[in-house]
């Protein structure tokens, strides 16, 4: 088990570093690997009903705050701290008094649940509250799998402006996730 955690850390950190360097496939693989772990963690720690929402919120946070990761440090404690913080914040917002033990970061990797659960708060609906052009751009990129360049052209953005608009749109989305 110990060896498993160490190996997983090595793999995840490698993916994180490649993602930071701009490798989209590695980044997607990292987020996918984390999703199952996060789902299992949130379920185990008493947020069964909201687990999928928390997974999405945490993935958004990990994505948007990835530049706060110090590449000289192990990755798992960083990701675990974000997950635990989002769980605590979730309980606080719900007015639930529940202790979340500060465990060894390895617990995040201990179990994996790839089975996607139901969401309570639909991000698509939150997306609807964004300015129309930004929303259209994000939906285009999400739904049709268009590349940013294609989507930018369809929505009348330059590719550079589209990249900025997508990033800002995701930031706004994260803001709407936790009012």
């Amino acid at each position, binding site marked *: 088990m110990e060896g498993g955690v160490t190996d997983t850390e090595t793999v995840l950190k490698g993916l994180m570093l490649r993602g930071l360097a701009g490798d989209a496939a590695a980044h997607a693989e990292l987020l996918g690997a984390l999703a199952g772990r996060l789902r299992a963690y949130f379920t185990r720690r008493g947020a069964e009903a909201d687990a999928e929402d928390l997974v*999405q919120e945490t993935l958004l946070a990990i994505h948007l705050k990835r530049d706060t990761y110090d590449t000289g440090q192990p990755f798992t404690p*960083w990701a675990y701290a974000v997950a635990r913080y989002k769980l605590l914040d979730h309980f606080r917002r719900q007015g639930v008094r529940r202790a979340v033990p500060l465990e060894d970061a390895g617990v995040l990797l201990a179990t994996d649940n790839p089975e996607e659960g139901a969401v309570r708060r639909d991000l698509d609906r939150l997306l609807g509250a964004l300015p129309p052009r930004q929303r259209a751009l994000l939906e285009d990129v999400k739904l049709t799998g268009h590349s940013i360049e294609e989507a930018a052209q369809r929505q009348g953005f330059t590719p550079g402006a589209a990249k900025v608009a997508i990033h800002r749109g995701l930031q706004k989305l994260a803001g709407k996730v936790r009012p």
Partner: protein
Amino acid sequence: MKTDELIGLLAKDTAPATPKPFAPGLLGAAVVGALISALVLIAWLGLRPMGAAMHSPPFWMKTVYTALIAVAGFMITARLARPGARLGWAPWIVAAAVAWLAMLAMMEMRRTPASGMSHLWLGWTWKICALRILALSTPVFVAVLWLLRRMAPTRLALAGAAAGLFAGGVGATVYGLYCEETAAAFVVVWYSLGIAACAALGAVIGKRLLRW
């Protein structure tokens, strides 16, 4: 939106992201904040005669004490700005500084007759010392909290307290440029109280302000 779709969307937003440095900004905040505090101090209370201060051991005792706390506050804040970082040994610097000054204060008290004891630790300015330190810490405090908001602290009260410790240490160091109290007993009580008030305030503010 399905989680898979979200991941696909996030993967489209993968411009290379350089890990954000934090310490340089924190240092800049300290320098600029300290300068502002010093200017406020000069306009408000003035400086003590600095030539004499340079040769005054109590001046250096105070400066070393408050600067050590500022350094420890800096180190702790820098760590708590990132998820998952450990506190490290910086809190021990605070403990060692307080222990050192408390020891000096005890030695002082042994040498002092009972009649002089209350003046030793109350000095001339005990009523206002902590409040002035709190006031002078404001510029650094505001700057550090603003910088922290752009990072990702996950222990909000602790991060706020560290910001307060840092700002309080800088504010107290600046206040030492005016304050002519000389007793270690005074400093270990009232300077510490001012800095502790900053830290407590930081914990309360941080819990709300630093949410993300």
